[in-house]
Structures are given as C-alpha cells and as structure tokens.
C-alpha cells in the first residue's frame, strides 16, 4: 500500500527513506509530509530526523528500537500521512530576505544573465518575483535549499566550487536557489547577498526557517544593505 517509499537500514542506527527517485517539488512536498508526520508520531522512538531533498534519515538508538520495527512504523505513518495536506502537519511561515544583487556580493549575476540571454535586471526581477519553498536545511549550518527557480534563470552550478563563500550569499544551482548561513565552500552561482544574519549558533533556534516554510527575496540598495547588517532573519520584517 505504501510500497512507493524505499526504506532501508544502514549502519545499525539509521533508517534511510527515499521518497522518490528524481527531484521534483511534488516529491519535496511528500517528503515534508513524511518528515513532520514522523516528528509528530515517532518522536519518542527516534533520536533525530534529517531531510534531504527527496529523502530523509531517521537516526535511532538500537538499544531502544530495531530497524525492522522502525521500518514498519514509518510505513504505517506514511499510509495516513500521504493522504493529508501538509498544512495539517506543519503551518508554514513566510520570511522575507532582503538581497543586494550583483556587484561584489553577486559575482555570478552577469554569468547567469548571459546564460539566460537576459539582462541582469530581468534576472533580479525573475528571481525576486516568486515565493520559494524551503526544501531542507543542510550540508552546512543554516544553508537553506529553496525551490523552485524559474527555468529561465536555472543556471548550472560552478565546475569547480569556490573555497570560501561569505555568509548570507544567495546562489542558484539549477532549479534550486539557496542562502549560505555561514561562510563555507560551495559551488552555487552567486547572484547577491543578504545583510541579515541567517544562522546564529547562540540563538534558540539558531535559524527560524523550517522545511515547508516560504522565502521571498526583496531587492535592496547598498544603503539598506548597510542599515540591515547584522539583523537576525527571525527579527526582520519588510
């Protein structure tokens, strides 16, 4: 009945779930439902649940529960969670992220414009004219994966990743856009930067944006960039 999930044990303390084989926002929505349903129904049984883009990992203590039981529990949760609306499991919030596009903060904006055959202004307009869904957070602290980018500006990632990308940088990689929560290496095409602090390890939670939430980008000028420097994303209102 829920044979569409691929659920496998790994390493003696992880159950990995592939929700579908290929990336699509429809699949992301299904992964979000399973994620929030597991958090709600199985939190007493599992240690941590982590989302990929179309998959999730359930970390467990094998002294408390075995993979075989957990696989059955996950399939049972999915049998009803797949039928409900995400809104019943997670009430999405909307965040506005101001961005200074181009220049030193967006060194790849001109590439994306050339790749798209558009002007830089059109790329900015297209990028900032829709609300994106937070697909997941990860690889580094507070990096948000957002989708889905307009296919006209869905430029491929860099061949060779940059060693150092400043925190707050906004990038594009195919149909995804994202924001670097902390300085890190990375291969996304950088089109701008937000002055907001996206991830603050000393706050609880360090970042308020959760999978399923919405993010809207708002173009700003250098003056506003300076004025908003250091404002926490959870405390900014446009």
């Amino acid at each position: 009945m829920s044979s569409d999930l691929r659920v496998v044990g790994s390493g003696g303390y992880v159950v990995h779930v592939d929700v579908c084989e290929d990336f699509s926002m429809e699949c992301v929505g299904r992964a979000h439902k399973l994620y929030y349903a597991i958090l709600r129904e199985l939190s007493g049984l599992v240690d941590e649940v982590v989302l990929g883009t179309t998959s999730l990992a359930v970390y467990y203590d094998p002294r408390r529960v075995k993979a075989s039981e957990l696989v059955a529990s996950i399939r049972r949760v999915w049998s009803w969670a797949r039928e409900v609306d995400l809104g019943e499991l997670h009430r999405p919030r909307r965040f506005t992220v101001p961005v200074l596009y181009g220049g030193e903060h967006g060194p790849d904006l001109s590439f994306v414009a050339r790749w798209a055959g558009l002007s830089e202004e059109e790329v900015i307009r297209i990028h900032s004219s829709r609300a994106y869904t937070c697909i997941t957070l990860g690889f580094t602290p507070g990096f948000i994966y957002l989708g889905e980018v307009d296919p006209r500006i869905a430029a491929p990632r860099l061949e060779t990743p940059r060693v150092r990308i400043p925190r707050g940088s906004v990038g594009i990689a195919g149909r995804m856009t994202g924001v670097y929560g902390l300085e890190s290496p990375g291969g996304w095409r950088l089109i701008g930067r937000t002055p907001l602090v996206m991830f603050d390890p000393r706050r609880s939670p360090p970042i308020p944006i959760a999978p399923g939430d919405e993010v809207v980008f708002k173009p700003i000028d250098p003056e506003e960039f300076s004025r908003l420097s250091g404002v926490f994303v959870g405390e900014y209102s446009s």
Partner: protein
Amino acid sequence: MVHVAGFATVQDLGRRGYRALGVPVSGALDRLSAAYANALVGNPSGYAVVEVFGSVRLRLTVDAVVAVTGGYPRVFVGDVEVAPWTPIYCRAGSEVSVVPTGRGYVHYVAVSGGVLCEEVMGSASTYVRGGFGCLGRALRPGDELSVRSVRVDDVWERVRKARPPWEVVARSADPGDPATLRVTEGIHSHLLGDLSTLLTSEYTVTPESDRMGYRLDGPPLATASKLGRLPSTPTDRGYVQVPPDGKPIVLMADAQTTGGYAVALHIVQPDTDILAQLRPGRRVRFRLISLEEAEDVTSKYLAELENPVLAVAEEEYWT
C-alpha cells in the same frame, strides 16, 4: 596555558539534535578514547577534553588528575615519562607533554573536572569551519582553558588504580595493517551495483584527511563514474561516499549533514574510531556484516561510551 605543535581543539562526544539545521555532530574523532580519558580522571564520559593531532604541552595552574589516551603517544610530566591510558596526579605548575610515536594519530588529554568552556547547542565541541563551540577555533599557544573545580584528592582516591581494558588500548594503538573496518551496505548500494571492488581491495589513508573526512586511495569503484550528482541525501559519520572518480571518502566527525555523492558503504560507529587513529599511509579493508550485527555492535558501543569499563591495576603514577 597551552603550547601546541599540531592541531588541537576542545571536543566532547558531540552536538546532537541539530543535524536538521545543517549542524554537524562534531565531537571527538575517536570517541571511545575520549570517553576513557574522562573515565580515567573521574569525569562523566561526555566532558570536554583536548583532542590533539601532533604534539601539545599543557601547563596546569591547579592540582589535577590527568589522563592521555588515543593511540599510544609518549607522555611526559615535566621531564618524567609516564604511561598513556593511566591516571596521573599532577601538582599545580606541572607541564604535561604529549608526543606522537606513530602508534595512533589522534590523542586525548582529559583533566579532572573537565574543560569548561562555551557550550553551543548543548555541546562544547569545536566546529572550526562554523567558528563555534568552546573557542570556535583550534587552540593557539598561550590559550588558557578553565576546568571545573573538583576535590582532586577524592578523585585520585577513586581512580588511581583504574585502567581501561587492554582491548580498548589495543584497538586504538595497534588496529592492524590493514585495519579491518566493519561495514553495512550504504544507502546507494542499489544504484552502484557490484561493490566487490571495495570489499576485496585494500585502501590507503591519504594526506587529504581531516576531521570532516578521511580520503582513501585504492582501486576505484567503476560504477560511481556513471552516477554523477544525486539529489542531496542526509549523510553521517561513517558514510563511505564515492564521487565520480570512484575513490572513497569516509565522512567523519565534522561531516556535512547532507551530500550529493553516492554512498556505497557505511562503517559501523565503533570502527570509525579505529579509522580516526590511522595516519596517512595506513591501510584499511572493509568487511561486510549484517544490519542485525551492526545494531549489536552499535548497542555495545553506545553503552560503553556512556559507561566505560575500568579495571584495577597495581602500579600508579604520582608525579
């Protein structure tokens, strides 16, 4: 006061519960050695210790019980050589030095009371790339670290004859060459097909290895080149990724929380501690075990991390 020649950070057993925000677990690379270092000085096993690649010299400004574990380094208090894996009673003003011997790669210094420094998201583990946890960076000469205040004589009475089981020292100091690491199939084994190259070959730890991952050199897994980039999946310590060049990368303590490379194998957690002790040039091979066996060894390992098992010895070190 610290004198460092190498790379030293403060670590505990890791930062749990924040992977969903992209925060790596971090913590000691060889967790069992860190847990035993704490046990030998009377601390709970999750207290913060100093993790050292290379050598380090620490000057104590208070009386303390100290233990050095992880591999089998030479340990000196002043110019008196003492044994690793042993509680040492040190007077204020003593200098404790750790000098690598080639047996093992990463060493732990625990002090009674434990290192007391800024905890972020519930852990003092230093995540250098993120710049947070304890000092948020590697230790530098001249740094001063605080320890919790304890009644040192009481601690010494309790631990002076404590010793770890010999197997614990041996697995860290002399894990074999090649060392055998137990694995289960990884989350993408179905996409990679035949894993026999990985399971029958020897691999060598390369110098491009750090707290984030240990890179291995050896026969490439041919099927990896056809896969390219996959949708990002959650990743964890012990995942054996194979990028398109087919050469395995084992994710370690500071591993990213999600990744886009195929995961061929998953090293069981206790054996990631063994890998941590293999310096560049050392060899490994993989041995496939069942999921049930992996659950058994993980259960025993977690129990031992929480409650290290100490034995009683005759000699003691008092300097």
